[in-house]
Structure formats: structure tokens, C-alpha cells
């Protein structure tokens, strides 16, 4: 099935892209790296702060209810070296966000891929 192959291809690409940095994270224990989730959502807040930048976003679930989610990125110095500023995301921006789910309740993600409001994949790490 085409969609399945596309998803598998995406999974392979994701692994090759991120396996180098996969476990380079002090808080890995908090995330389920076997459980990758992808959402289309709306940014409600973007915090460009140490130690990890945070994206707060709203997602409509299958029941049509609004869910509040939090996604974690790397440090602001690193994002700045990847071209970000504190204005790179703003409330109201439509994003597609993929990440590993937090294990201990709450709606949280360790973000692994992000498609920004312009439809472009945003660079998440410094070169």
C-alpha cells in the first residue's frame, strides 16, 4: 500500500537523520522512543529559553476536542545557530510536528521533525 511504504520510507529517513543524536539528551528516560506521534496543530506560545525551547500548541483530537500539547526542542543557542530567533514561531502558526511521546502523563513530545507555517521543514539542530 502506497501510504504504508511512504510511512516506512519516512521512518527510515527519520532514523538515518536522527540516530546520531538519538540518545544525546539528558532527559531521554522521560520519552517513549518507541512511540512517535505526528500532529497538525496551532502554536499558542513559543518560549525561546534555556535549557530547552518549548512550543505549546493546540491539537483537535478524533472527537473534535481541543488538546493542549507541549513540545521540546534543543537549546536556544543551538537553534540560533540553525537560523532561529525568538520570533521563528508565533501564536496562531499552523505546524506539523512529530516527536516521541512523554511517558509520564501529560501531553508532551520530544520534537524530532517540524514543518513550519510556511510549509518548510525547520532545521532543528546547528550544523
Amino acid at each position: 500500500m502506497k501510504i504504508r511504504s511512504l510511512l516506512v520510507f519516512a521512518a527510515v529517513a527519520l532514523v538515518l537523520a536522527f540516530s546520531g543524536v538519538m540518545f544525546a539528551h539528558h532527559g531521554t528516560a522521560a520519552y517513549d522512543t518507541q512511540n512517535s506521534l505526528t500532529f497538525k496543530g496551532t502554536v499558542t506560545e513559543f518560549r525561546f529559553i534555556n535549557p530547552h525551547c518549548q512550543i505549546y500548541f493546540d491539537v483537535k483530537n478524533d472527537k473534535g476536542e481541543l488538546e493542549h500539547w507541549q513540545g521540546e526542542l534543543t537549546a536556544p543557542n543551538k537553534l540560533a545557530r540553525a537560523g532561529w530567533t525568538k520570533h521563528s514561531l508565533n501564536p496562531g502558526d499552523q505546524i506539523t510536528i512529530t516527536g516521541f511521546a512523554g511517558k509520564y502523563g501529560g501531553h508532551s513530545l520530544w520534537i524530532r521533525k517540524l514543518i513550519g507555517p510556511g510549509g518548510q521543514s525547520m532545521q532543528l539542530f546547528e550544523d
Partner: protein
Amino acid sequence: MMRRLAGSAIVLSALLVIPCASYAQYGTGKALPAGKKPATDTGKSAPAPVHDLSGVWMMRNPPGANRGYTNFTYTDPKTDPPALTAWGEEKFKEAKDSNGGAYTLDQTNDPVLTRCYPPGTPRVYFHPYPFEFVKGGKFVLQVFEYDHTLRRIYTDGRSLPTDPDPSWMGYSVGHWDGPTTFVVDTVGFNEKTWLDRLGHAHSEQLHVTERFRRVDRDHLQLDITMVDPKALAKPWTTTFYYENRPDWELGEISCSGDYLDFDKFESFSFKNKSEGTK
């Protein structure tokens, strides 16, 4: 939708165990398409300048190296763990590191994450931020972006102190060994730091030797040797690899300013809390 995601998650997790052999890139930075090298690895680098370590340096260990950021320790803990003394072994058992799926932030006793203590030498190299050297009169400063950490390396020919006062980062002396290798010896450590991010311990007897070898204009190799008769049964050695980043400038990171309030920024990661949203 969920079944498809579960299917790819299974593929994803299966593929995680495959070494990154197809990864032509050096180290743990931004993903490049397989076969593409980072900008500095053009094969066209210039020769290393003489007696010169200037520039901003960022760790880029070869993929599959099983050290540095990926394993939080110096050598592969499965195939090449350090030889510890009985004392070192006992101390290591007490450590609750928060890396690689071990303990959560509210469970860990990592002195850096819980108290913002200075990371110590050479643990500071595991914090994934760049460093640079700044020349003074009788010393060179090694300035790390992580938490403003600073080391003063005396270059006026003095010897290491024989009875040093204990300190967090140690007392360092350095000299050039040939045109492109800078050798630093450090003693005088307190026992409040970990050797790495897994919690291997050291004593006040720790002596660290670093050989900074600028192999060409854009690449630095750092040989680290740790000798500690109380904690290590044999010297522990590794090599870390760095790339020069001419366009980077070090920013600010304050551990005590920004990291200590874990519940404000990462309450979702606490095993014993159930908050998730802001």
C-alpha cells in the same frame, strides 16, 4: 491512523539498533543526506597554523564511535568500560544518571543537573556546546559556552603544584609539543564532580592529561588520559574530535539561572508528577 503509526514505530525501533554505517557525516550534528560531508570536511582544509588553537570548536565524533554525547562516557560501556578499583566501583553504584533512559530528572543525583555544580574536567566536554581559547599573559583561558565554565591554563612554564588546593575544574598548566599540539596537565580536583555523565567517580588524586592536536586548520583531535590510582585500576583514555566553526559566537547559558526550576520547564518528565501542560 494509529495502526499505521504503530507500524512505522516498530520499523523505527528496529532500525535504531543498526549502526549508522551509511552516515557519511562526522558526528552528531544536523542530519545531512547520506554521502554529503559537512562544510568544513571538504578535504580542502588548509594546514594547521603554528601554535594556534583560535576559533570556536564543536565536538563532532565519528558516527558509531560510541563515545561523547551518544553514550555520555569516554569509551563504549558495553565493549570497553573503564577498569575501576573497588572504591571506584562502589562510588559508581551510587550514581543515578539521567541519560540514555536511566533515571528521570526528579530521580537523578547528578550534581550538575540537581545543583548546577561546575561539571569538572573532563566531564565538561560532554555538555554539547562549543568552546574557545582566549590568550592571556601567563595563561590561556579555555572558555566553554556551557554555564560560563572557565579553565585557566598557565603557560609560563610553571610546574604542577605538588600539594594543590582542591577545586572544581582543577589547576592546569599547558605547553606546546611541536608546532600544532598543545598539552595540558591538570591536578587539584575536589571529589564533587563526576568523570562523565554516567557517574563514574574520581578522587582528589585525579590527574588529567589533554593533548589538543590541530590536525589541519578546521579539525582538532583531543586525546584525554585520566589517571587516578584511587578510582581507576588503569588509565582511562579516549579521543574526541572537534570541528572549527568560524562563524559561531558563544552565547550565554546559566545553569543556576535556567536549569534548576525543573518543574517549570519539564514537569511532564517527572515520574512522580502528573502535570503535562503549562
